[in-house]
Every structure is written in structure tokens, then in C-alpha cells.
């Protein structure tokens, strides 16, 4: 588990996000009569607030910049991350933008590859965790009863087991996990808080009239879930995904730092691990361990800030005038 768990408060703060989704439209005198006009207006309204929300803009800009580095960065690298050059421990220069490691590898090349890995693992971990969270959360919240009891128990079990420790044990015994495998493991262990939050949201939605109507008309459960429930929570789901994405990056950085991550792909955590084990700190090679940490902080921090911005956009009560 990462601090995304703490951050779930950020999402819980978004509890009234659901209130927004449920139609308690904000804005003082925006009186909107027909449901159809209403959705259009709502969408417009979100966009309207979105492009005026400094937090969202700032967070999104940081994340986009990082993403561009991840996409374009490796193309600009003059060396491969594993390539040994003959300049050892050199500080940043025009030849090696971020300097070199003690055995002559280009830090920039590693950094750019690490950025790519970070987004990859965030995506894989985030998607898998979101999917599991949605399956469990929707089912538990919608079906209620014994199904809910069992699923909630399973969720609570996974919630309490420190995912980090489980990853440690699994990765310790598996040698050479690849990025997708690591992402899978991280995803499979970081869904519980999200599932629990979704279950609660689903509960309150199911209690509402229009779902009841759909239910009465004997529609297929999954149809109701994906036609009626999920769209009503889309903003909530999106924010949840952002947190899971950032969380996956943080957990994997920890695993990689301990040296249990991928061996044949560079990650930001692996860079820190190599800098640490090869005494980059003591030898004053700041150019080695500073960039990966800044990058992780930027990506994850950018995501968090973006999330608060989104929360404010979706939830009028939080908007500061």
C-alpha cells in the first residue's frame, strides 16, 4: 500500500463528488429545466471550471511535461541506458546531460528510460487495480446481501495486509520481474481501498430512484452497472484511477529501490538503488540520485494536485472564489 491510501482521504473529500454526480447541481442561480439541457450545461460547466482551476492546470501541466519526457526523452538519448562509455563518474556536461555513473553509463539515458517505465507501470498498475476495484466494488454495492458480505470481507483482508510486504515476499522469491509483471502485482494488491469506496458510492446510487426503475424493468445487472451506475460515477472513477496510478508508481519505486524490481529495464527506483548501492551519495554524485527522485515527486505530486483540482471542478462546494 502506498500513501495513495492516505490520499484516499482526498477522494473521500470527494465524497460530495458523488453528490454532484447525483444532481445537486452547484452554482447559485443556474436554474436548468430539462434533463437534457442539464447534462450539456453540466459538461460545459465542468470544462468551464476546469480551464479556470489553477490546481488542475498546474498538476496537469506537470504530468504532461513528465509524459512528454517519457515519450520523447529516450529518443533524444545519445546512449542506451546499459551502454558503458569510457567517461566514468563525470558530472553533467554537454556530452552527458545528466552526467555518468561510476561505470560510465549515461544517467540521462537511464532517466529517460525510467520515466517511460514509470508511466508504463503506473498505467498497468492503475488499470488493473481500477478494474478489480470496479468489479468488486460494483458487485458488492449492487448485489448487497451475502455477496456483499463475502466481497467486503475479502476487501478488508486485502486492505489490512500490507501490500508492500506481500510484494516484498513475492518479488524476493521471483527473480527478475518484468515491468508488466511488476505492474500486475502492484495492481492486484492496491485495489482494496478503491473497492471499498466504490462499494459505498454504489450503495447510495442504487438507493436512488432511477436505478430502482432500471432494476424493476429487469435489466441485466451488468448492464445496469455499466449503463447507469458507472457513468454516474465517471468523475469519481477518474479520480480514483489517478490515485491508483500515482500509488503504483510509488510502490514500484520502493520495490525497485530494494533491488527487487526489473533487471533489464531501467526504472527510476532502480536508478536510486544503483546510486545508493554504489555509494553515489558519499562520492557526491548528486546528478545520479537527484533526478529520479525529482521525477517521481513531480509525477506523483502533479497527479495529486491535479486530483484536488478535479475535486474542486466536480464539486462546487470546494471551489474557492
Amino acid at each position: 500500500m502506498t500513501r495513495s491510501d492516505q490520499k484516499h482521504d482526498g477522494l473521500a473529500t470527494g465524497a460530495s463528488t458523488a453528490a454532484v454526480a447525483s444532481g445537486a447541481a452547484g452554482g447559485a442561480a443556474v436554474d436548468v429545466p430539462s434533463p437534457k439541457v442539464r447534462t450539456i450545461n453540466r459538461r460545459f460547466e465542468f470544462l468551464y471550471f476546469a480551464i479556470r482551476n489553477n490546481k488542475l492546470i498546474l498538476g496537469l501541466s506537470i504530468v504532461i511535461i513528465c509524459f512528454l519526457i517519457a515519450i520523447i526523452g529516450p529518443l533524444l538519448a545519445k546512449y542506451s541506458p546499459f551502454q558503458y562509455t569510457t567517461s566514468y563518474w563525470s558530472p553533467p556536461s554537454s556530452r552527458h546531460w545528466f552526467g555518468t555513473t561510476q561505470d560510465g553509463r549515461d544517467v540521462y539515458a537511464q532517466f529517460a528510460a525510467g520515466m517511460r517505465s514509470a508511466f508504463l507501470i503506473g498505467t498497468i498498475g492503475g488499470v488493473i487495480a481500477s478494474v478489480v476495484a470496479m468489479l468488486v466494488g460494483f458487485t458488492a454495492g449492487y448485489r448487497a446481501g451475502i455477496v456483499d458480505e463475502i466481497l467486503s470481507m475479502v476487501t478488508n483482508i486485502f486492505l489490512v495486509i500490507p501490500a508492500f510486504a506481500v510484494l516484498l515476499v513475492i518479488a524476493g522469491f521471483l527473480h527478475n520481474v518484468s515491468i508488466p509483471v511488476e505492474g500486475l502485482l502492484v495492481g492486484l494488491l492496491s485495489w482494496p481501498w478503491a473497492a471499498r469506496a466504490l462499494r459505498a458510492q454504489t450503495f447510495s446510487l442504487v438507493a436512488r430512484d432511477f436505478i430502482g426503475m432500471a432494476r424493476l424493468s429487469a435489466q441485466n445487472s451488468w448492464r445496469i452497472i455499466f449503463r447507469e451506475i458507472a457513468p454516474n460515477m465517471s468523475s469519481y472513477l477518474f479520480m480514483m484511477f489517478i490515485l491508483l496510478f500515482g500509488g503504483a508508481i510509488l510502490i514500484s519505486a520502493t520495490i525497485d529501490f530494494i533491488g527487487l524490481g526489473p533487471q533489464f529495464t531501467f526504472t527510476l527506483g532502480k536508478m536510486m538503488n544503483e546510486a545508493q548501492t554504489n555509494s553515489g551519495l558519499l562520492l557526491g554524485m548528486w546528478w545520479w540520485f537527484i533526478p529520479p527522485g525529482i521525477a517521481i515527486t513531480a509525477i506523483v505530486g502533479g497527479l495529486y494536485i491535479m486530483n484536488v483540482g478535479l475535486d474542486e471542478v466536480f464539486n462546487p462546494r470546494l471551489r474557492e472564489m
Partner: protein
Amino acid sequence: MSLRVENLKVYYRTLAGDVQALDGVTFGIADGEIMGLAGESGCGKSTLGNSLIYLSGRMKYVDGSVELDNKELPIADMHEMDRFRYKEVSIIPQYAMSALNPTRKIGKMAKEIIESRGVDYHSILPEFTRRLELVGLSDDVLRMFSLELSGGMKQRAVMVLSTLLNPSLLIADEITSALDVSTQKAVAEMLVEFRDRGFVKSMMVVTHDLSILHQIADTILVMYAGHLAEKAAAEVIINNPRHPYTRLLISSLPEVGVTYAKKRLTGIAGTPPALLHPPTGCRFKERCPLAFEKCVEQPPFIEVDKGHFVACWKEI
């Protein structure tokens, strides 16, 4: 005259611009008067009620003045206003069900509020329990958390708490809308009782429900789109309204007792204007069956009969 409101303008700030929710209203409430304030959602009635006691972050004082018992209320000054709140002007909020801190026992919470206003809780406690009994609550509620109370109990507890310092003006904002019909009636009667016993001098009852007003209000003030439409004695408004909007409003009710908030006003074609950029002149003219050229100018709110004020060129 207990309350005197003069050309009060309060806008809502939104990122899109100011919403002119309350655009120059002038009226008064006499000592002992229970005034009903009616109008559709978004007409500015809640804004009016709230602006007399607490301008929330997004409400912006623009112009006008408010006098209570011949003293100027500094409604634009959040801090100065504190001296008047509760003691001179108090409110039973729309959200009375959730107005009590869920994690404090009611007695403790009351103690903390009252003492924070410089009043000794222990000396007021006997009166507090007496009034609770008056509304049918035993003093056990003081040792309970709000979630142990039913909706009606919470409502009554808030009523008692809000009026405990005998304010001059009480604003009751949609206090009945969350209750069932029989409780509504009881609560409404209690309001009258409070006035009669002198717990409050005068009262402004904001509601959707004209039948409640018919039952308890001395006068009724009708608002439309941030402007005043009509004010008169309750009987007059119900039986002999003169503003076209009031007439349509009354006639569109199939019977007294049905609240118009729940039903769209099918009798009146069109929708109220958006107040972000309101039209000039009479704001009802787009929907008014009687509209004519003169209506592009704003009609004054003038007394057409004794105690009967109307804002309509047709009535002048």
C-alpha cells in the same frame, strides 16, 4: 417598525460573473409580524433570508441598507455583524436536520455556542429546558447526540436553540419542507406560539408552501427573479392578488397545500430568466400575459392599497 430593508442588492459571485439574485428590494416587517416570503426556486428568497444574518462566502453585498429596531445592521461586515447575530437576529436554517454537530452532545454544543456569545449557560438552562418541554422534548435530549433524534425532534431542538436568546427577528428558512404533513402543521403552530410568547419579536418565514403561510403568516411577500412582486396581508395575497405573477402562482395550484416546488408551474409558460445577465425592465415580462411596451422599464414597488404593495405597470 421592527425591520426596514432599503434597496438591498446582494449578488452571488460565480466564476462566470455575478448572479443578481437580490436586486434592489425594499420592504419592512412590523413588530410582532410574521411575514411569509414566497417564490419559486432561485427567485432570491433564500438569499434575502440569509443576507439578513449571514453573507456566505459567495454572497456579495452590493448596495442598500437594513435597519433592525432602528439600528443599522452591518450585514456586509462579517465581524461587526456577529454582535447582532443570535441576539438580535437569528435563523432556523433550511438544513435544520443537519445543523447540529454530529459528534457533540446537544447540551454540550448548546453550552459552547451560548457561552461563546457571552451568555451564562447555567442561568439560561432552566429556560432552555422549559422551552424544550414546550415543544415536546424532555431534557434528555441535552445528553444525546443528534443522530439519536428523529427528524422532527432535531427540527424542534434547533428551533428552541435558535430562539433561546430572544432575538428581535427570526428567519425561518424552508423549515417545513423536510417534514411530513402533520409535523409541518405542528411546527408551524409552534412558530406562532414562539411569537405569541415573545420569544421572538417578528419573523420572516421563507417557504415554498403557501398553505403554511396561509395558516400562520400575517403578511406575504412574493418574489420573482430577484425582484419583489407583491406584498400584502396573507388573506389578500391568497384571495385577491394583483400582480400577474402572483395571480398565476395562486391559480396554478390545484388546491391549497400542494407545494409548487414539486410541480413545474405548468400554468405559466416559459422559465424564469437567468440572473447572470437579467433582462432590463420587468423581469416577468417574457412570461406575462399582460405585458406591454411599458414593461421594458422596471416597475416601482408601490403601495396600491393600504399595506398592499405591487410592482406592475398595470396596477399603477
